[in-house]
């Protein structure tokens, strides 16, 4: 892994570096580089090499700088790395900064019309004809700009040894098997690879070689995964409002639902997706649909969560199932709308005025986005409450390698719903009566044809029979029951993933997209410093009881997360009580995914070098 210690090109005789490096491509937003970058990524994936791609993009449609990093790791590490060995510079505006970003011993590939002073002797330099090759092959001047991106793909393919057939099938994937764009792009790629073979003298050690480490895997983003999860979870209603980085979740629902969710007998959709006028109305619609018996969901990000606050409290108190996806971005306020964060943990857990606390699921990758995509509906209907799924921009919008998603392993759990027949047997019901002691009452659905079915749902104080009440006892009893329900949730939400390492004095707790960097950190700690670290990954709120034992079993527990206020650390301190001084906040919030380099240094600075 320690590529940074590599000698510079001048010391010659460098052993090849195979399948262990990163590429950063610097372009302009809207220039079409996304096609080139995802084609590179998928081609490497198809070669059997573990890869991860992260798009660092601006809040802009066209013109501002954007970067894409591809990490190639035979060991399977997928976290972001702070520097890249290979930098491809196509944007003159950032060319100088990008030049400085090249890891020692790496190479700088740049459009040959970029004129900056290049005086580094520790890296290789490769100018590429990003304009002249497209001019030769692409007649449409509008498409020439896009085609420029294929020039670096071709040159990289030659220098690194990327398989042309895999590039072609990656483009086939991107263009949904349309031959015309695939062939016109391949033409540029091939011409560029040939040009590179004749004109570039390779003076770097980097290459890729086929492996078999992606066999059986898929490559997908978390938002598509979440949407598929909802489709297989039987969502019947979605209301949403456009917001980065959550929009592509609703887009994926809109793309896949017509294929997967048409009623074959009637040829009508088994769902409705409505673009609301704002996030407030979106959750209002979801609450209405959940009340009426639909499996209803919305997807949003931080600013939308703020607008949903009042309805979230209403859903909690009136006890209406709903599923809310929050694909987190960096706040407060509009913040960094295209950058990642885990900054909505505290706010969403307590969303709404008064005493309210919510059930939250914390997926760490697309496979868990799929799983929680359907499970969230079961939990929401079982607990009769809004359930939040806190994903983030990194999981939601970037491409991740994943095992194929597992089909739901249990039938839908629609919760405690009484139909007309059951009402006949029972001779009536009290909506908010806690019969089983789990804090969850029985509900009926509007339209149930029984004279005793109806009840009145309200956000005001109410009795067990759902009638209006301002009596102190009624209020206290109801809140106590909601407390019991939260304890029920604690036991039935996904439990933490725990890796207790024998002899480990320290441990790490994390959640969500911090996971890949934590895994790599543990590997580095042990390999480079001889430090063993146990690991607990939180999958849901309320926090599991077992976390207390895990903390108790270690001297120090680092809480790794992506925000400024150490939000999960705060919740954990409340949760573990007397053990709280064992916890160390290891939070980082700059809008970029967590790196193992920072995390390892942070821990070793505290632990002392060993």
């Amino acid at each position, binding site marked *: 892994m320690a590529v940074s210690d590599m000698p510079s090109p001048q010391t010659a005789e460098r052993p090849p570096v195979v399948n262990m490096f990163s590429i950063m491509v610097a372009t302009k937003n809207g220039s079409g580089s996304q096609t080139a970058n995802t084609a590179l990524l998928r081609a490497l994936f*198809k070669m059997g090499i573990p890869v991860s791609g992260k798009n660092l993009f601006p809040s802009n449609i066209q013109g501002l700088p954007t970067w894409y990093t591809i990490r190639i790791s035979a060991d399977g590490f997928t976290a972001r790395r702070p520097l890249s060995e290979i930098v491809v510079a196509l944007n003159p505006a950032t060319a100088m900064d990008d030049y400085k970003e090249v890891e020692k011993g790496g190479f700088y590939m740049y459009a040959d019309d970029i004129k900056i002073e290049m005086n580094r002797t520790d890296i290789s330099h490769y100018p590429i004809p990003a304009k002249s090759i497209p001019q030769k092959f692409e007649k449409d001047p509008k498409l020439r700009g896009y085609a420029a991106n294929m020039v670096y793909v071709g040159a990289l393919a030659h220098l690194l040894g990327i398989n042309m057939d895999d590039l072609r099938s990656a483009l086939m994937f991107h263009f949904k098997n349309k031959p015309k764009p695939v062939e016109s792009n391949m033409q540029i790629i091939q011409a560029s690879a040939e040009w590179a073979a004749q004109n570039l003298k390779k003076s770097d050690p980097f290459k890729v070689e086929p492996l078999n480490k992606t066999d059986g*895997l*898929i*490559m997908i983003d978390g938002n598509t995964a979440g949407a*598929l999860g909802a489709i*297989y*979870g*039987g*969502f*019947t*209603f979605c*209301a949403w409002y456009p917001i980065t980085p959550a929009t592509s979740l609703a887009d994926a629902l809109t793309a896949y639902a017509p294929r*997967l969710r048409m*009623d074959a007998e*009637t040829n*009508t*959709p*088994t*769902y*409705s997706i*409505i673009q*609301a*006028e*704002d996030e407030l*109305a979106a959750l*209002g*619609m*979801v*609450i*209405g*649909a*959940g*009340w*009426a*018996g*639909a499996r*209803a969901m919305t997807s949003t990000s931080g600013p939308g969560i703020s607008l949903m606050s*009042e*309805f979230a409290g*209403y859903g909690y108190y009136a006890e209406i199932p709903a599923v809310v996806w929050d694909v987190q971005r960096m706040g407060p306020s509009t913040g960094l709308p295209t950058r990642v964060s885990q900054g909505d943990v505290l706010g969403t857990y307590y969303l709404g005025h008064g005493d309210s606390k919510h059930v939250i699921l914390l997926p760490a990758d697309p496979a868990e986005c799929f799983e929680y995509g359907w499970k969230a509906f079961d939990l929401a209907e079982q607990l009769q409450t809004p359930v939040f799924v806190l994903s983030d921009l990194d999981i939601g919008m970037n491409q991740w390698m994943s095992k*194929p*998603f597992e*089909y739901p392993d249990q039938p*839908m759990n629609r919760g405690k719903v009484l139909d007309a027949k059951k009402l006949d047997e029972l001779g009536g019901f009290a909506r908010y009566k806690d019969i089983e002691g789990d804090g969850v009452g029985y509900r*009926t*659905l*509007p*339209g149930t*044809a*029984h*004279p005793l*079915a*109806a*009840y*009145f*749902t*309200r*956000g*005001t104080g109410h009795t067990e029979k759902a*009638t209006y009440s301002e009596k102190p006892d009624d209020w206290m009893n109801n809140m106590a029951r909601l407390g019991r329900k939260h304890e029920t949730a604690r036991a039935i939400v996904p439990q933490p993933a725990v890796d207790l390492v024998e002899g480990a004095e320290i441990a790490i707790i994390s959640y969500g997209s911090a996971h890949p960097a934590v895994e790599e950190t543990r590997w580095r700690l042990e390999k480079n410093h001889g430090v063993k670290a146990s690991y607990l990954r939180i999958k849901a709120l309320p926090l599991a009881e077992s976390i207390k034992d895990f903390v108790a079993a270690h001297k120090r527990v680092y809480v790794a997360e992506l925000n400024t206020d150490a939000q999960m650390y705060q919740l954990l301190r409340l949760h573990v009580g007397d053990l709280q001084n064992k916890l160390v906040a290891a939070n980082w919030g700059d809008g970029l995914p967590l790196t193992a380099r920072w995390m390892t240094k942070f821990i070793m600075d505290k632990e002392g070098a060993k």
Partner: protein
Amino acid sequence: MTAAPAKNVNSLGLPKADYKGLPTTLCAGCGHNSISDKIIDAAWDLGLKQEQVIKLSGIGCSSKSPAYFLGRSFGINTLHGRMPSVATGALIANHTLYGVGVSGDGDTGSIGMGQFKHMVRRNLRVVYIIENNGVYGLTKGQFSATADMGQEIKYTGRNELPPIDLCLEAIVAECGFVARSFAGDPKHVINLIKAALNYRGTAVLDIISPCVTFNDKDDSTKSYSWGKSHDERINDFSFVMTQDEIAIEQAEGETKAVELHDGTSIVLQKLAEGQHDPTDRMAAIKLLEDARAKQRFITGLIYINPNRPSLAEHEHLGSTPLSALPESKTRPSRESLEKVMAGMK
């Protein structure tokens, strides 16, 4: 009606008392109470199954009232100004239900204006009643956005801002059923509710409903005495059930029939010279502008257009409500997932 119902019971064989709700907690004489009574009358008269009706409201005096009618219907008292979104979700989740929404002028005209207009724009099938009294009652008498310009109330002082006309807002947002009525005119209110319940989209009923505690002085356009002395009926119509062929025959030629849901119709009385034709949208807008300028208290069917598809139609919903679809219809097969996964390699 096919057969004349027995006395004191409706076509379902139910007495009117069956359609009552809890006793009201609003002020004695409040216009809202008489509207609640008229909803009971209309539902009973139409022979609606209460279990097939959902009652919705926002927050405010008006929004308390759904507890006071149709006791066997499901009710949901939502957030201030946000009933339209909840109604949208509920009535798309189950589009076979009747929806009766009760709101106020504050709930609709101020905090809820955005949701109101978007609900109308989507043409959700719901009867949306605005119990309009020009004041906030529960917070003790502040002006609402429909209050008269220049009006004075002891607590709040003088209102310097022009009123918002909610019927005009509805028409501008493409509402296809817009009417104004007066809580002091029960017959008119019943007739409108019946027709509105059978309209295939959003039916907006702006019912002036005096607040006896804060805004019932004679010079207020939202008072009983103003309503009684200024009520100017712009047209008359009768609501006709499908089976009532005689009424339709009689109607033909003399009048104009507008077909509603399930073959029910509104039969407009022959328009006299200068009377308003509610099928003319521009005329409706002009009429409301004129009424606003001259402070005319017009009541009647202001605009009707039965041709816009409802939101449920727009969504191509099948006959089974989304909420009643079984798992076999809403969870695709294992094989389909394998196919999707194979495409991601």
